[in-house]
């Protein structure tokens, strides 16, 4: 019986000492810091396993509070912890007009002429450094730097050699805008349908020689809709999209090189084209 007693006494003493120590530490040694760190830390599993890549839950909490780590960085906690942390930090996507990344080039494999055989690193940026592989110095380089940086898998290289944006997946994060060495991506509101699909500043003849789909600065679109479209540096520029009235669209679409026009053709038009193809086939 004494043994049990000793045991109980020892454990009680240990528990007491430990708790007193904790209380003492809690009160005396506390360091002032961002209360969010504490809150995030609370929300974490405290497994201190290091699976997040940080030195323990505390370090991870600090990183999250500073915005260095993603809120979903704790693999142990899973979804609940993630949403809890997000709540603490008050991260909620504010309502904004949905935007999408749009490519300003229609220089497909077929349309844009190559300079010559390229022997080098197969990224757009690398090709751009030696002047690019296309005779057009402004157009798409077809190597997909944008596809590689897209964190949402919203881009892929289409069959024609140009990157295609998956509108459902695109979050307009802007990574592709930064990645393109020729600045061919731009974020536009979803509703903007008329886009100039060229960035070539070459004179008409030179542009046309390099690419079938280049803007040759003929000015048809600008004449059709002078209040919204002007010619600047050999290229059509949409100054104010809102001023393009729908009835002008057919005029604008008369562009001889398809360098400006609607992003999506009407569905019945598409169907018609398909029918045509079928008939031909």
């Amino acid at each position, binding site marked *: 019986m004494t*043994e*049990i007693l*000793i*045991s*109980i*006494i*020892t*454990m*009680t*003493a*240990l*528990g*007491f000492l*430990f*708790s*007193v120590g*904790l*209380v003492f530490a*809690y*009160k005396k040694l506390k360091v002032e810091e961002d209360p969010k760190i504490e809150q995030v830390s609370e929300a974490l599993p405290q497994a201190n396993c290091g699976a997040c890549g940080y030195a323990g839950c505390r370090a991870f909490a600090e990183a999250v509070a500073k915005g260095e780590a993603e809120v979903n960085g704790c693999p142990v906690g899973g979804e609940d912890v993630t949403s809890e942390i997000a709540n603490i930090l008050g991260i909620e996507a504010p309502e904004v007009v949905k935007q999408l990344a749009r490519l300003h080039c229609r220089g497909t494999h077929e349309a844009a002429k190559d300079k010559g055989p390229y022997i080098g690193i197969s990224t757009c940026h690398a090709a751009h450094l030696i002047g690019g592989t296309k005779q057009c110095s402004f157009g798409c380089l077809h190597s997909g730097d944008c596809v590689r940086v897209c964190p949402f898998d919203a881009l892929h290289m289409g069959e024609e050699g140009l990157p295609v944006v998956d509108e459902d997946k695109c979050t307009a994060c802007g990574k592709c805008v930064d990645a393109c060495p020729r600045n061919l991506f731009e974020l536009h509101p979803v509703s903007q349908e008329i886009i100039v699909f060229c960035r070539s500043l070459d004179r008409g003849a030179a542009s046309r020689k390099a690419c079938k789909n280049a803007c040759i600065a003929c000015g048809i679109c600008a004449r059709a809709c002078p209040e919204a479209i002007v010619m600047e540096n050999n290229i059509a520029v949409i100054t104010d999209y809102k001023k393009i009235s729908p009835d002008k669209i057919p005029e604008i679409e008369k562009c001889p090189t398809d360098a400006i026009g609607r992003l999506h053709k009407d569905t019945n038009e598409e169907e018609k084209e398909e029918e045509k193809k079928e008939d031909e086939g």
Partner: protein
Amino acid sequence: MSLSSRMIIVLTTVGLISGGFLAGVAKLTEERIALNIQAEIEEAIAEVVDNAEVNQKVYEEEDLVIYRELDEEGALAGFAVQATGVGFQDKITLMFGLDASLTKITGLTVIDQNETPGLGAKIEDWNSFLQFWENKDATGQLTLRKPAARTPEELSAAEINTITAATISSKKVLEIVNLSLEKVRQLIQEGKIAKEEQDGD
């Protein structure tokens, strides 16, 4: 109730309950654990000394324990020596038996070892190692036979077999036995181990 006092109370209570609980469990299992440990020793003794029924611890120091063994009738059956020494990787604890006249090793068994599996760990293996330890001369130094013999008969009385490819482990076991044999002989000379039971032991 303030937070601090609540913290203290909760932890103290948990400690109290856990302490009591654990002590209870320990009480329940204590005996069996002690029995287990003893059974391990007894088993080892039974392997190295024939007819041993009663074990009497006659000498104990760090790394060396000597038991006197009596048979069913209470006659002296032999001695069991438990010795510990450093092996190839870690400590080896072994037990060997001596006959009643203290001149012959009756057998060897290994209680605890941490040698390389598949190699040095074969010192636990009857076929490769232990069978060569029966009836060895305990009056002098034992020596190692290399290359290894295939049957115990090939060895002379003071020769011990080597395990193929584990020379060091074999050698280490031999060293431990030789060393403790010397110690035993010295103890006999000093009269600390007697063949008959002494008063007050």
